[in-house]
């Protein structure tokens, strides 16, 4: 027996656990296949699909060049404004919550309770928040901003916590040794460690918020979602095509810029 065969035999035999995992996975998969059924597919499905694609490929250019509040440029700016303001408000509100749920800063029970609260905030769908905020502000982009802020808090604080838990504490100890006050410790010991990663996280969330902003239109909380869904429900596919075109271009652009900025922030 040569060395290679020996090494091979020393490897633990994982075949049983692999087979078990595969069996469990396939059982779950087979169970989920029942979600697939074609009985609801109407005979005209193919025709509708063709109409949709023809419409999507022939966007309504008059909407793209329209500069009034009905036109796509304004709607995109409004959507961006909602996402921007929502991200900023959410980013600020998430900071105290993140510190409260970091287990190296507050006692474990408090951290656990705040974490559970954050899971609840993250799980409730944006639509429900939208409806609740419309009672506060009336329909319009303001409700959208508040919804975006609340939905951002959940993910932002979860990502913040990871950064906070990786803080280098030895710097704080040496600052303490040379007699820095608490404010000085925060300003020169903690703040510089957090800013780059926090801004990177916030920019990433802005990216996501821009995508999610279409959901808000469903409940009348402003942005480009409402005209998009109206156009879809009235089968105006060329309008849908124009709006989607604007949205896709904007999102790709923002994604490109935010990726560049984030690599710079993280790599210095």
């Amino acid at each position, binding site marked *: 027996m040569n060395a290679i065969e020996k090494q091979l035999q020393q490897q633990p035999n994982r075949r049983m656990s692999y087979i078990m995992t595969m069996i469990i996975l396939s059982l779950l998969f087979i169970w*989920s296949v029942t979600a697939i059924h074609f009985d609801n597919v109407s005979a005209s499905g193919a025709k509708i699909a063709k109409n949709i694609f023809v419409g999507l490929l022939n966007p309504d250019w008059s909407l793209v060049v329209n500069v009034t509040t009905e036109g796509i440029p304004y709607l995109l700016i409004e959507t961006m404004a909602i996402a921007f303001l929502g991200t900023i408000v959410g980013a600020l509100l998430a900071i105290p919550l993140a510190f409260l749920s970091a287990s190296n800063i507050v006692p474990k029970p408090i951290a656990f309770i705040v974490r559970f609260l954050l899971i609840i905030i993250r799980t409730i769908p944006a639509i429900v928040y939208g409806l609740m905020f419309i009672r506060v502000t009336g329909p319009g982009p303001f409700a*959208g901003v508040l919804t975006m802020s609340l939905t951002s808090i959940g993910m932002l604080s979860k990502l913040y916590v990871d950064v906070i838990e990786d803080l280098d504490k030895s710097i704080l100890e040496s600052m303490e040794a040379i007699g820095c006050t608490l404010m000085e410790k925060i300003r020169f010991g903690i703040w510089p460690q957090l800013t780059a990663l926090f801004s990177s996280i916030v920019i990433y969330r802005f990216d996501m918020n821009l995508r999610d902003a279409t959901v808000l239109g469903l409940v009348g909380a402003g942005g480009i979602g409402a005209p998009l*869904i109206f156009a879809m429900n009235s089968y105006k596919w060329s309008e849908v095509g124009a709006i989607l075109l604007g949205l896709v271009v904007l999102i790709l652009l923002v994604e490109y810029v935010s990726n560049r900025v984030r690599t710079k922030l993280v790599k210095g």
Partner: protein
Amino acid sequence: MQWKLLSPKKIVLPNGKEVLEKRSIQPILWLIILVLLFFSIRITGFSLEVLVNRIQEFFVILQQMIPPNWDYLSKLWQPLFDTIKMSLFGSVAGAIVALPIAILAATNITKNKGIAMVSKFILSLLRTMPTLIVALIATFIFGLGTMAGTVAIFLFTIAYVGKLLYEQIENANMEAYEAMHSMGLTTIQAFRYAILPQILPNYLSTSLFCFEGNVRYASILGYVGAGGIGLLLNESLGWRSYENVGMILLMLVCTVFLIETTSEYFRKKLM
């Protein structure tokens, strides 16, 4: 982050040497952010006054949700399982389909630049389409029900897993792959024995993470008629029976928490 147009500050040291200190662009950044904030506030009509005066209205619905209507629970199981099935099938099928597309999109495996570009473009196009809109389009084609939701989740999973996967393939160690290639294995064989073992843990972990997120997404897809628990959510919200909404949300929170904890456990094991 340093712009050339800002001239560095000169500091003369006591021994006569001159040192250049790079100027920070932070003040300019803050100025830009403030200007953007100002315009965003103007466009969206943000007003603190309204918020402070009427914030109690926010809790009106919340109060009506508590206590939740426990009798509603028996009607929830079927749609809840539908939601899980939709996200499970969509995630598994999507993750499987994402693998070949990711191979096509990775420039170190696919030598043809054109194919790689097109695959990357398709992936980013799929990713920019909001899931809800894809689901709405799917309901027009596949009719109302879980099928439309599954298609939407399937497409989203391809885009998400595919993007992360091709990045991992491009960062994989190519030495073993090249050695196998030179021994005469085909591209597929070399990929199977040299690259796949490197990316497999990450691939599975990404797919699990995507599944977690999909359960959450699937819960609102019903709002546009794409099946699952969102259908009941839409109905209860429409009828303003908020104690039913409370029950649905409670169930969702529990399910998501359970799935998240399980998948987090497995993801930690994979890493």
